[in-house]
């Protein structure tokens, strides 16, 4: 399915830049894209054809769709609305870009054991996500922590990399596809080594009660 989305995606991007018109930039902490396979097949009008092809191979399309993990990029209303807007704008051939966060462990799996909630890690990215395109060249350094000096200048003590993952969002009948940029956090290897080295050579501070 992804192959069939690429062409309208490229075409949409080219037309958008050629037109130099206004674009929508939708920033959201969540994009609850959910399971994409069924949505893509419906939008491309290929649902029944794929179902028939798989049936002839002795494979159930509903089982295949059930196998897709739900992308844990949001909790509910806010993220679902953001994704619906992107998809609707693709259907309406409105150039739009979504900017969000590619959470790796943003949610947890809730289970109840002996009447108590037990949280288990969400692992949807343990297997390849076929709908995203990693863009290692689009990498930004994000500083955080640290302190602010007397002149109100911020001196961050740690940094992580934000790396872009592009996801095409195709509209109804596959005429147009907008892009959702989800940024994932990656630790800087040098930062990790430096942190370990500092801890190894710095003596522990005295206990405050002694």
């Amino acid at each position, binding site marked *: *399915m*992804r*192959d*069939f989305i690429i*062409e309208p995606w490229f075409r949409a991007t080219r037309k958008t830049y050629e037109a130099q018109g206004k674009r929508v930039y939708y920033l959201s902490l969540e994009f609850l894209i959910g399971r*994409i*396979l069924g949505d*893509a097949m419906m939008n*491309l*009008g*290929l649902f029944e*054809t*794929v179902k*028939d*092809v*798989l049936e*002839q*191979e002795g*494979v159930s399309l509903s*089982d*295949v*769709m059930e*196998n*897709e993990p739900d992308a844990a990029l949001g909790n509910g209303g806010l993220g679902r609305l953001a994704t619906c807007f992107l998809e609707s704008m693709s259907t309406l051939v409105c150039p739009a870009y979504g900017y969000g966060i590619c959470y790796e462990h943003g949610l947890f799996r809730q289970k109840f054991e002996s009447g108590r909630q037990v949280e288990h890690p969400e692992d949807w990215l343990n*297997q*390849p996500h*076929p*709908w995203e395109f990693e863009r290692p060249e689009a990498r930004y350094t994000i500083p955080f922590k640290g302190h602010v000096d007397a002149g109100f200048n911020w001196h961050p003590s740690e940094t992580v990399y934000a790396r872009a993952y592009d996801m095409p969002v195709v509209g109804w009948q596959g005429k147009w596809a907008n892009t959702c940029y989800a940024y994932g956090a990656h630790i800087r290897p040098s930062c990790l080594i430096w942190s370990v080295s500092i801890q190894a050579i710095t003596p522990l501070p005295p206990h405050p009660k002694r």
Partner: protein
Amino acid sequence: MNVMNDLSADALRMRITQHLTYTLGKDKTHASLYDWRMAVS
């Protein structure tokens, strides 16, 4: 003809089978649901 324009059942079957074989390294006999999903996706 642009192969991307061919949305017939035969063309889709060929493309899915090709993905299964050459991208995922599986044949139909040993393909799991995960393999089929990735091939269709």
